[in-house]
């Protein structure tokens, strides 16, 4: 590594005028990036990290205003470059950029080839053929098979991961010196995320690029970045090497954030740390420390005076008053956690309350205006038991059929064959009201799961009204009690969902699900739309409520760290089938199915000393409309043999774990993770 700076940003601010006020998205930050280095910018949504990335090449939305003392890129100051200069000299040529949404970031009406080659022909005096040559070369490099024929394809013909590879190839067309990757893997599944990160890391080494990696995921940043800048409310609150920041965080926010990550403080911690409140809005004049209102160590000075930037070493800074008075104050519920762990009782398996018996589900889908209808097998003879009082985690990548399964369990979707029974009753024969009393859902997106036209009180009490349970006053009392349970202040009773934060909304959704005292709650990715600090609050709440109300959870998720934290048992789904199901400890520490093993490899825990592992899985999640023959996993499986390609594996039970794999008995998981 050389020590020459390639990018030096001083005092960069971005303001976005809105209807009512001016939003200070980025507040005078300074950054320094050395040649060949990777800088990870970490922050929750609203911290201003994406705006920072866009501000470097002035790609901000038209209304945004940028100001900076200097943005020194390799000796030239970009602050004073006009649009024309940026476009012709810098963008796409010396600085490449990758965005979060691979689905929308490619122009849908032009072929991949055209979008790749034009990047080159626009800037360099090369022929189309030369550019095409380079494009093929790069596509091969980013790991797209059969690159020459890809050139004729259109973005919609590629999967998300493939598109992100194309995006990367496009950013590399002119061999930029700096690559800015704005949440490059957030929209992707874990296995694909690992592949892409590995690819980026590889390419960077090979090409000697510098990189700015923007992400909210501490695991990702811990593996990929050399240096980390933590952003909060438009400001950089802490910088340092990955090791320093993650192992020895100085700023209370960084500390809190890390406490919130499941698995950071060991797998079995019952309660997560959490940061109360949410990011304040950055409008008007900001006084004091922006984190003061959420900080357990805050003293009066934090609320009135701007905190100083403290330098611990070269490139190691944090912005905090660091009041002595509260220096040793334990933070973010750590001691509670200690108590809780003690309270936790070993679980004894209860009776089976819900049985899914060989359920299959097929949809018919038409593709395009002229296409024919095709059938899509979403569920293929799924068997599952849920036992009283347990948390069963259903894990899988997007498109694997977890949502269809949870809908089928709730009785919202009729299975083609098979049945779901709840106690003695088959769910499809139960009257809607009775079913509702036994089973209730909590959904992923708290923005869409609450009717924006109803007040919170209405929403929570609605199940009672629909099922005519109790008198008006009883209903009201119940709603108030439930709001207390889920930690919603009374005054939001007459508020609309839009007036609440994401965390509050999810609390309301939980309240609505629990007001009927259901036996089983289906949590469909209840935290994946939330920031990590809020996720911790909700996970804590869910666990508390389970103990309090004796609930059973079916917890649908893709996040193995959450599974690790929450689940008693785990079921792994792949292409509409359950490929492995068993106790958490069994499945996660000793996976029998190669897919489970690959999922575990791909999950990136916070380990600054490790880099991104080489992906154990090749290829993409297949299109459910073209199911591979034999074992559906065989095209991606590292241990697949002839038998796997031809015969569908038989389900078997090995050490109390259900598994569906020909190689289950011989396969052993080489644990690369901790």
């Amino acid at each position: 590594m050389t020590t020459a700076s390639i990018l030096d940003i001083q005092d960069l601010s971005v303001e976005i005028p809105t209807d009512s006020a001016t939003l200070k998205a980025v507040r005078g930050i300074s950054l320094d990036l050395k040649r060949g280095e990777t800088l990870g910018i970490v922050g929750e949504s609203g911290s201003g990290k994406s705006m920072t990335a866009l501000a470097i090449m002035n790609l901000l939305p038209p209304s945004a205003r940028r100001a900076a003392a200097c943005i020194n890129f390799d000796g030239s100051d970009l602050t004073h470059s006009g649009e024309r200069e940026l476009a012709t000299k810098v963008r796409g040529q010396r600085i490449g950029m990758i965005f979060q949404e691979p689905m929308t970031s490619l122009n849908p009406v032009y072929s991949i080839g055209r979008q790749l080659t034009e990047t080159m022909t626009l800037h360099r005096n090369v022929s189309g053929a030369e550019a095409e040559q380079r494009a093929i070369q790069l596509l091969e490099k980013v790991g797209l098979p059969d690159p020459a024929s890809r050139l004729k394809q259109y973005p919609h013909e590629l999967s998300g991961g493939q598109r992100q590879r194309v995006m990367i190839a496009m950013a590399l067309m002119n061999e930029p010196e700096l690559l800015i990757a704005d949440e490059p893997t957030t929209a992707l599944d874990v296995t694909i995320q690992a592949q892409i990160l590995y690819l980026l890391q590889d390419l960077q080494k090979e090409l000697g690029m510098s990189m700015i990696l923007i992400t909210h995921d501490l695991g990702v940043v811990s593996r990929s970045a050399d240096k980390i800048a933590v952003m909060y409310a438009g400001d950089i609150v802490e910088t340092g090497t990955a090791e320093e920041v993650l192992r020895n965080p100085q700023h209370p926010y960084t500390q809190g954030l890390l406490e919130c990550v499941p698995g950071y403080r060991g797998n079995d911690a019952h309660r997560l740390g959490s940061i109360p409140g949410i990011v304040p809005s950055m409008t008007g004049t900001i006084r004091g420390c922006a984190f003061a209102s959420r900080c357990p160590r805050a003293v009066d000075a934090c609320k009135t005076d701007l905190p100083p930037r403290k330098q611990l070493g070269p490139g190691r800074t944090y912005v905090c008053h660091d009041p002595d008075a509260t220096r040793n104050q334990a933070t973010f519920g750590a001691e509670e956690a200690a108590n809780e762990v003690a309270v936790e009782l070993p679980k004894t398996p209860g009776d089976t309350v819900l049985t899914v018996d060989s359920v299959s589900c097929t949809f018919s889908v038409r593709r395009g205006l002229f296409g024919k209808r095709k059938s899509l097998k979403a569920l293929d003879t799924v068997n599952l038991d849920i036992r009283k009082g347990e948390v069963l985690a259903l894990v899988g990548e997007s498109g694997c059929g977890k949502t269809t399964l949870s809908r089928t369990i709730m009785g919202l979707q009729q299975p083609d064959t098979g049945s779901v029974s709840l106690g003695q009753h088959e769910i499809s024969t139960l009257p809607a009201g009775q079913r509702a009393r036994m089973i209730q859902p909590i959904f992923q997106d708290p923005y869409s799961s609450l009717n924006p036209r109803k007040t919170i009180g209405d929403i929570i009490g609605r199940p009672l009204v629909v099922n005519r349970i109790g008198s008006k006053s009883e209903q009201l009392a119940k709603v108030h009690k439930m709001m207390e349970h889920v930690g919603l202040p009374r005054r939001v009773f007459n508020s609309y969902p839009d007036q609440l934060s994401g965390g509050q909304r999810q609390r309301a959704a939980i309240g609505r699900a629990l007001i009927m005292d259901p036996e089983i709650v289906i949590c469909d990715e209840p935290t994946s739309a939330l920031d990590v600090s809020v996720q911790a609050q909700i996970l804590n709440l869910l666990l508390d409520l389970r103990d309090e109300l004796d609930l059973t959870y079916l917890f649908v998720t893709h996040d193995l760290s959450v599974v690790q934290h929450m689940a008693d048992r785990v079921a792994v789904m792949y292409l509409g089938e359950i490929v492995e199901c068993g106790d958490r400890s069994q499945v996660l520490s000793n996976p029998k199915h190669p897919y489970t093993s690959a999922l575990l490899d791909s999950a990136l825990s916070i380990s600054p000393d490790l880099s991104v592992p080489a992906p154990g899985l090749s290829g993409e999640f297949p299109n459910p409309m073209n199911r591979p023959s034999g074992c559906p996993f065989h095209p991606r499986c590292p241990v697949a043999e002839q038998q796997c390609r031809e015969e569908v594996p038989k389900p078997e039970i090995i050490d109390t774990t259900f598994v569906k794999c020909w190689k289950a008995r011989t396969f052993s998981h080489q644990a690369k993770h901790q």
Partner: protein
Amino acid sequence: MMTTRQALGDASIASVDTPSELEEGGLGLSPTMAALKRARKHHGLKIGFGILLVMAVFALFAPWLAPHDPYLQNLSLRMLPPVWTEGGNWEYLLGTDHLGRDYLSRLIHGARISMTIGLGAASIGAVIGVTLGLIAGYFGGWIDQAVNFLVTCQLAVPSLLLIMALVFVIGQSVTVVIFVIGATHWVFYLVVTRSATLRLRELDFVAAANAMGCSKFQIAVREVLPNLVNQIMVIFTLEVAVAILNEATLSFLGLGIPSPLPSWGLMIAEGKTAMFFQPWLVILPGIALFILVIAINLLGDGVRDVTVTNRRN
């Protein structure tokens, strides 16, 4: 909207999430209050609303505000010009028509007719379109296909011709005109309601309602419909304007409001034979129409602007 939000990136989410979970933090405005607050800053909306208010007052209190009986004919005082031209008369500020009726009084009473037709027809269209749109969007399948067929029928036939043919065979009266215009202007409601319902149907709060045991009807009416109110309101205002113009056109072509009712379109038609000589007969009702319709459109655009919410999805 979605894309603008994306351009703003994650920063704008912070502005949405302004209300904080902090105990001492205040709540944001409720959707209605927020819209009203935006409305106070919207000039087009204020102007449109103001004009409309004045015209509505005229329409409501026409019998007391009009200086003459709009039906009283005086054949010896036919075609008097407005007061500012030669031969004008202070008694008849805007002159008289071909039967010697006071033009100003007829214009004032005309506002009544235009507004009745506009509101009536747009309401009927809304009822038909929203109902069909909800049903088609929510239930899908063959019902959706059938509704889609109806829409194609409706769109494929030139609507003015259809209206004319219907009025022609049913007979002219205010009620018929309201019903016929209403019955031929529901496609816009339907398309918007249907696509919004299709979108909402996939949202989790509908699944939640399903899971709590709501019937399909309850979901469509209690959960989905309230979310369409803003959009329906915007379409409603625009359709009121369309209905008013349609009525005027129809009356102009002689198939709308029957004489001697003072419809503006009819007044233009009646004045047309003399338009080169008594142009005010044509110009005045045209201006009245223009002002009314522009006011409604300003209001509609304004309502759309202020009710657009920064909601996700």
